[in-house]
């Protein structure tokens, strides 16, 4: 039976109307309820296993960021125990000579609903970790350093980071396994970059951001207090 066709004619197997479905790929649909909360995942093609969505995401405000890279320093510190921008799982790109707002961009892992990195991993090392709210996470013990995830990430610069010191991949897992920090991480805990960001340009959210384009992940985190400092608020 063609499940896709079936949904056109009825209110849907799960009682959700068609317009509330968001198609992510030919294989995966998600259902968005009121207020944008994810309610269900369905799959159209038989035999394709659903990848549970992450229970947490980072959203950022690229008009607010002060380019201090404290987030990158915090990330490599709590995860690797050293300071190294190249090992940070969040990246700040900037250009002193460019005009605002194009002078800075924050490139965080999107914890994609349809994660290309997870699907690319031939070893099952990169998974939606069920013990940590399904964050997309590399198990370093299983990773063979094939770089498939690094190449698969459709969002440059790749959010699957090549750790050239260990010859392994690594990626943002919302600090669910940050050995050099005393705080509990993961979707039910804290994230080092969020805590350290001096201007509040990074925020944790539990709701799935809009997956098409950038608007779901690059948001407005400013507000009247920011405006009182003389900065623009949208």
């Amino acid at each position: 039976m063609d499940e896709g066709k079936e949904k056109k004619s009825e209110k849907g197997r799960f009682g959700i109307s068609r317009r509330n479905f968001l198609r992510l790929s030919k294989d995966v649909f998600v259902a968005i309820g009121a207020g944008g909360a994810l309610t269900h995942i369905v799959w159209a093609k038989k035999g394709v296993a659903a990848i549970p969505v992450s229970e947490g995401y980072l959203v950022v405000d690229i008009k607010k960021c002060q380019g201090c890279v404290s987030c990158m320093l915090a990330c490599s510190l709590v995860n690797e125990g050293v300071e190294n921008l190249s090992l940070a799982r969040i990246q700040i790109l900037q250009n002193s000579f460019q005009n605002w707002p194009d002078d800075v961009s924050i490139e965080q892992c999107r914890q994609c609903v349809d994660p290309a990195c997870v699907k690319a991993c031939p070893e099952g090392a990169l998974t939606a970790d069920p013990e940590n709210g399904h964050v997309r996470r590399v198990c370093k013990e299983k990773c063979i350093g094939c770089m498939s995830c690094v190449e698969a990430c459709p969002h440059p610069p790749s959010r699957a980071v090549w750790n050239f010191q260990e010859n392994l991949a690594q990626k943002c897992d919302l600090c669910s396994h940050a050995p050099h920090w005393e705080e509990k991480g993961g979707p039910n805990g804290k994230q080092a970059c969020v805590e350290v960001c001096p201007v509040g340009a990074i925020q944790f959210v539990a709701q799935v951001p809009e997956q098409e384009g950038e608007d779901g992940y690059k948001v407005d985190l400013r507000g009247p207090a920011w405006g009182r400092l003389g900065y623009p608020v949208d």
Partner: protein
Amino acid sequence: MSGYAGKILDIDLTARKIGVIPTRKYEHWVGGHGMGSAIFWDLVEDKSIDGFDPANVVTILTSPLCGTLAPAAASRCEVQGIGVQSYPIGWFTRSNFGGRFSSMLKFAGWDGIVIRGKAEKPVWIDIRNESVEVKDAGTLWGLDTWTAQKKIWREVMSGQDFSRWMRLGSRDDASRTTQKPAVLAIGPAGENLSRMACLIHDASNAAGQGGFGAVWGSKNLKAISVIGTGSIKVQNPKALMNARLWQKKNYAYNLKDTDNIASGTVFQSPPIPGVLWGYPTGSWRPKEGQRPQACVGCHSGCRARFASGLGNEATCYATVFYIGARKPEIQRKASDLINQYGLNAHEMLYCLLYLNSLRMKRILGAGRDIDCPLPFKDYGKENFVEQFVKMVAYRNDGLGNPHPFGDDIAEGTIRAAKKWGRLDEDLASGLLPFPFWGLPVHKEPVGQLEWGYGTLLGDRDINEHDFDWMKWDATSAKMSGGEPMVPAEELVRIYTDKMAPFQGDRLMLDYSAENMYSEHIAKLVTWHRYYTRFWKQSAMFCDWRWPDFLNLRAPGKIGSTGEAEPKFLQAVTGKEISFLDGMELGRKIWNLDHAIWTLQGRHRDMVHFAEYIYTKKSKMVEAPVLFLPGRKNGKWDYCNMLGRRMEKEKFEGFKTRFYTLQGWDTKSGYPKRSTLEALGLSYIADELESHGKLGQA
């Protein structure tokens, strides 16, 4: 060696050779300035050489905190060597800049760079992790600093896409980065040996003082580029992260805590750009789209980038340099010009004011006694400032034609005044407000005593704002009829309680005329020298956010200085250096520097302000009053410290008290053997003695 890369890059430009100095050899100086002075001492045999001599050594040093999460302590970089800006002697001096350079150097595996000799032709240095090459700069020489940096970015990253991970190396598994190389460069001003030339990194990080741009130019060094993908080891990552978050929670700005927001050159300031466009008559802070912009690791940026791109990252003097600009856009464009051509904004501002003063006296102008090709009828317009900047950078008329005036000015304001036969007269009248060592005034020296004395007893305009915020707060409160943050007595108590080893001496902050030559003020100046030499210029706590004396967010308004600095240093390095240990190291560094100045020719008799400081009542261009703490009839208040002069004989008394406190010979100002030996510097005493410059016991 936690916090350190372990190696200092040693470049001999004459032989075009790359060497390595192990950091361990100088580790006891901790970093930055202390290391730089020690390396200079060892590598330069004849300390009395001129700054343009190829034997001059320039050091560029980081600290173990660079590239870490230490707040407002992770990005500064200390440049030292014999300068060419001060007069009559180009003192062994320092300059400092922020941005991305020092951290990137650490990531590349280097704690610093030592530059020796002189290249035969223009070169630039290409550092990619451990790989270092001295390359021909034929196609870079002549470019402004911004164009040169962007060109180097493209070359170093081999044209890779900046929006993606870029490999350093050809292998797929090579190390990679998304960051652009950090480049430090000179512009045309440095290439043409203008004594006001500076070093520029990114849009507006400048090592402004000392004429290091010209020193590099004399060495045929155009730029140093560094890209690094390595790691900085941190002794205790958890402690560092905890310390950072604790500092943020308890001492940094909080936009929700609106009662206690205070902005300025202090730790708790919110990230408002320190721009002075429109100063002093008003504020021309742009109203267009903008973001704060911060150096690496800083908890509160002090610059901004704008939708128009005009004046990106510029602050302070770089913004107010063209003070006569008719429109905001012109003043911002002037900031960009001065950064692109690589010139020290501080002296360029005062140079222009001086030229204008001479013009108004009809001494200077086209065809006048001092023939000047600047079109003063266009003063305030863009073409004027463009011609002025190019004139100084190219030593011509600013329009591409030879003219001796350009040459005069490129030699610096003091030397120009001397050439025109006006030096003594204009220093006596104050028409040339250059109070010390041929360098322009910054803060009013007879009022802000630690600034005036510290500059004269040192090597350059100190540019250290530790005691400046209290002046701004008190002065603006008094002028507007408001109230200062705290009463004077409370402020004095909070500050002086933190000024170990002289803690508790309240009179250190009594700026009144009755106290201005006292031993208490000598202690203020001494504390300031030691704290800045170690905690700020060696450990790299940034001048615009440290020390944290008074903090409105903290219990009792008592800031974190004394506790915070050692905490961060220990978390990164594991070194148990107490605040007092750091002050003692500062004393050691200060003595080393003074020994170098002594060998350069410093003697007590030459330590004098320009004549007008002794004869004219003090005033300021920017405001009619200057409020600082002082005692009147035994009671503390903020008092106006303008309208007085420095009395020469009493100043001599102050010098004696200051030298006594340092343990120097009061007749000559030379260091004494006992002082140096107690600091573990007997080799320095030996050297001074061999030159007949050791102080008598």
